[in-house]
């Protein structure tokens, strides 16, 4: 399942759906809003998204994962809009029979999201400055 949402990501619910399966391994990645970036203290953060394209690209990424790996179920969810510090911006969870696939797919999906999904971070710092973050440094 994929989603791009302005709401808090219901990790507990999604996690439960992964667990009901007859799977040996679940790997989950969560990206949280950090309180600083490049040495500046972040006061406020929001994500802009080109949503129809974002959903399409996210879906393509996940479809590609299912073609390349044998996995049972996955979630790839990105939250957008204003997100309080410490909350989850992105959550990827993968269940598979064997852990190898779960690790590889979870990594693949988040790496692809950071390269391809049209979402941009806008940071407001405690010193009053603001900045679009464009390009993923890591």
């Amino acid at each position, binding site marked *: 399942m994929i989603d791009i949402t302005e709401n808090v990501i219901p990790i507990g619910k999604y996690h439960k759906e992964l667990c009901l399966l007859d799977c040996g391994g679940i790997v989950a990645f969560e*990206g949280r809003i950090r309180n600083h970036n490049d040495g500046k203290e972040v006061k406020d953060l929001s994500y802009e998204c*080109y949503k129809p394209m974002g959903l399409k690209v996210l879906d393509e990424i996940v479809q590609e994962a299912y073609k390349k790996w044998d996995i049972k179920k996955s979630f790839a969810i990105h939250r957008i809009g204003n997100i309080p510090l410490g909350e989850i911006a992105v959550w990827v969870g993968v269940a598979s029979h064997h852990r190898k696939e779960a690790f590889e797919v979870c990594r693949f999906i988040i790496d692809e*999201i950071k390269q*391809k999904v049209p979402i*941009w971070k806008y940071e407001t710092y405690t010193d009053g400055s603001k900045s679009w973050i*464009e390009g*993923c440094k890591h």
Partner: protein
Amino acid sequence: MIQKALNKTITVKILFFASLKNYFNTSEKTITINENTTLKELRNKLFLETNISQEKLLTLLYAINHNYVSLDTLLKDGDEIAFLPMVSGG
């Protein structure tokens, strides 16, 4: 007048995201251009009016109707074109 009659035109919508909204002072514009225009021609024309640096320009990505495309793509009537800075989700 004769030349104008020969050139058919198309109308496309252009979307600007993230910092590009600042360069264009808008998030969206609809314009009419000659058919057989490539994305590169359109982009060059539009960016002439901005103070975007060559360095930044080279990092941009482009989508038409929700698909990433290359700059030599020929535009079609009704296209939704997006000018996209490098993404920073996740």
